């Protein structure tokens, strides 16, 4: 992390584990002595709406829970069109994006009012708005592990594997144990390691 504050956005659709992902990032970094503030934006629905966590990381001060426009350094998207939405307002030419490839269709698409963007074009748009972008089939990995909710941890693994944040398997184990529960360490670690492997291109070896 070269900037202070370093601004991370974790985005997705309600129910995808966005809050847990940002909590774990924050927990790992607070443990390393950083000041971390996390704010969440969400609609009134439990599921189906866009949700976004702003994770603001600093060596020196507690920043506000929301970031100003155009200052995201890293976007972690559990849903690809949500990556486009976040980059649209918070992105800048130096933003790095880590994106789950699996779409979740809004009810507006399901009922036929709106089209979902063509995936290839969507990925190209995300790439054009990012300095670097990583596309990870996180939900597919999570389904292989038995629960689609683990896509969030697979993506965190990808972030670690690409060295985009100072987070590690050991840090994750400690954070899950302390902030969630010790019996969840094994499955989350497995998902995290999958993410590291996926981003380093060794997943299907």
């Amino acid at each position: 992390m070269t900037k202070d504050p370093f601004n991370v956005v974790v985005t997705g659709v309600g129910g995808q584990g966005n809050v847990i992902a940002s909590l774990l990032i924050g927990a790992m970094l607070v443990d390393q002595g950083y000041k971390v503030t996390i704010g969440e934006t969400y609609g009134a629905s439990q599921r189906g709406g866009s949700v976004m966590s702003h994770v603001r990381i600093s060596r020196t001060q507690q920043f506000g829970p929301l970031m100003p426009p155009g200052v995201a350094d890293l976007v972690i998207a559990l849903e690809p069109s949500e990556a486009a939405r976040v980059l649209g307002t918070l992105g800048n030419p130096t933003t790095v994006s880590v994106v789950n490839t699996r779409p979740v269709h809004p009810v507006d698409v399901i009922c036929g009012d709106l089209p979902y963007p063509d995936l290839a074009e969507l990925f190209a748009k995300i790439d054009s708005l990012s300095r670097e972008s990583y596309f990870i089939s996180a939900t597919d990995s999570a389904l292989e592990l038995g629960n689609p909710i683990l896509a969030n941890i697979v993506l965190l693994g990808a972030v670690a594997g690409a060295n985009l944040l100072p987070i590690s398997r050991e840090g994750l184990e400690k954070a899950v144990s302390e902030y969630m529960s010790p019996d969840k360490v094994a499955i989350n670690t497995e998902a995290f390691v999958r993410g590291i492997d996926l981003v380093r291109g060794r997943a299907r070896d």
Partner: protein
Amino acid sequence: MSLISKDSPGKELLLMGNEAIARGALEAGISVAAAYPGNPSSEIIGSLAEVAQEMGIYVEWSINEKVALEVAAAAAASGLNALVAMKQNGLNVASDFLFNLNLTGIRGGLVLVVCDDPSGISSTNEQDSRIAAIPADLPLLEPSTFHEAKDMVKYAFELSRSIQNVCLVRSVTRISHARGNVTLGPLPDRRPVPYFDTAKSLSALPASVTHPTAHRKFRQARELLKDSPFNRYEGPEKPELMVVTCGSGVLFSREAVQELGLDARVGLLKVGTTWPLPETFVVHHLANAKKVLFVEEVDPFLETNVLEIYARHNGNLPAIEFFGKKSGFAPDVGELSPGLVLGLLSQLTKTPLPTRDDRYSADAQDALHRFAPVRSLAFCAGCPHRASYWALKKALALDGRNGVVFGDIGCYALGVFATGFHQAKTLHAMGSGAGMAAGFGLLGKLGATQPAIALCGDSTFYHAAIPALINGLHHRSDFLLIILDNSATAMTGFQPHPGSRVDAMGLEARPVVLEDLCAALGAPPVIRDPFDLEDTTAAIYDLLQKQGTNVLILRQECALVRAKRNQARRKVEIDQTRCIGEECGCNRLCTRVLKCPGLNWDAGAGKARIDEAICTGCGICAQICPSRAIDVQEA
């Protein structure tokens, strides 16, 4: 061990604002905590409930906010420290008691935390609760960081014990539902044994005695708060602009000053003791000001009261230009954001805002327009409310008298929108749907012909619909109360309610059974499973034909509660050979109308398909498909 009960003084943790508030209460040695759940306040009592047994304290989810305050007040009347938490709407429910409790005071410590929801992100309104502190003659503190939230709650107990009256703490969504660093302090190891001193009464009567007492206590609070470290000034001695701010406005304002490079020109007057304002401190700093900008959520509380102080001291103060909501400069509705505060500061100091380069901005706009489809509010996949509204819509159509559905507070409030098929026609406060339906049901005597239907959840029923039901029964109102019993207070995080078998602390509780209660009142309910659409539709239709006050319980567990149990779910599949898609006369009933997120429209094939990562197996789509193309396999 839970996070908030860690006995590790000096350790720094990442805590949600609500957890920090709970930790502050633990550090202050609370014995009792009570609340009715309401976002953004729910995690305060939720996190205390998790550690209640380990910490040896009593924590409950009360039936409503007034009772929660009464439970806490009983503890505080007996020498204990007690915490009560609620959202802004909850304070209205509790106010009848609060505006008498303030007159008698208490004998231990009682802190009432109100979490406001600027912009109404998870509320029907964005009411500013701070105003209540003035007529109640009670002190009110406002934290601006997570760590300060912890320290302030701890101090609020000290203050409450000193003045023997309630101390209010006002949080907002961006503090309560955000997370940040909190350094733990020590936990006390002893708590007093409760004892109510019967030698003296706690009676609000006579007001001629108790009102002056409340004023004396308030003056005492003013004295104790006048040099509070929760009020600080940072910036140049003679600033070109002074920002007077509190709560979430502090971090947004500080960042905006730094971002615009205004450190040498703009000062920040951070107020933590919002009521009573520290008058000497405010006057001292106004003496150095030329322009003042107020940054606060939601109403102009600081603005009004600082201006009042300025008016009384203006003989000794320079001419100052004030900018805020009252002056028309800042928006007078909605929450603060960094962008908003940056804009206000940029305008007042004539400093340009940082911008993205043009090419990137154009590309970003294109992403928003073409690649980020709107996500409208929707019921979850497998939500029983979707099924209930479907059946209700059908029954009302069959009935044909243009029945009126009075809505209420809970997830099912989304019934005013598309996934509830726009069925709910009113939405106000807890229990108000039943009250209004009971009222409308009496208008038949004056010639009304439309049937009246009230909807409310199980938790909402206990909270505030029971008096309305009794009122309707007593006055022979013709209305149908439908209780959507999904087994939990779902919208706020599945807290138990009086119908539950366990309490907040996980201990066995005596359930007050919905159907028994209704039967005892003289309205034995009909009970149906909303996932059986046909049966539910018929039950609603039949009840609409009956006179008097009738109750229907639609009982099916919340899909998220079911998912938490992680048990095998029914597998739903669409046989695409049987789905005739666009050709079907159904006009895509399953996707276009039902709008379940577990269904997708396969545009290529022109047919529906199931999203296996989202579908919960409720099977209602199978019941409505005219081609019988959807198969449900038992788990």
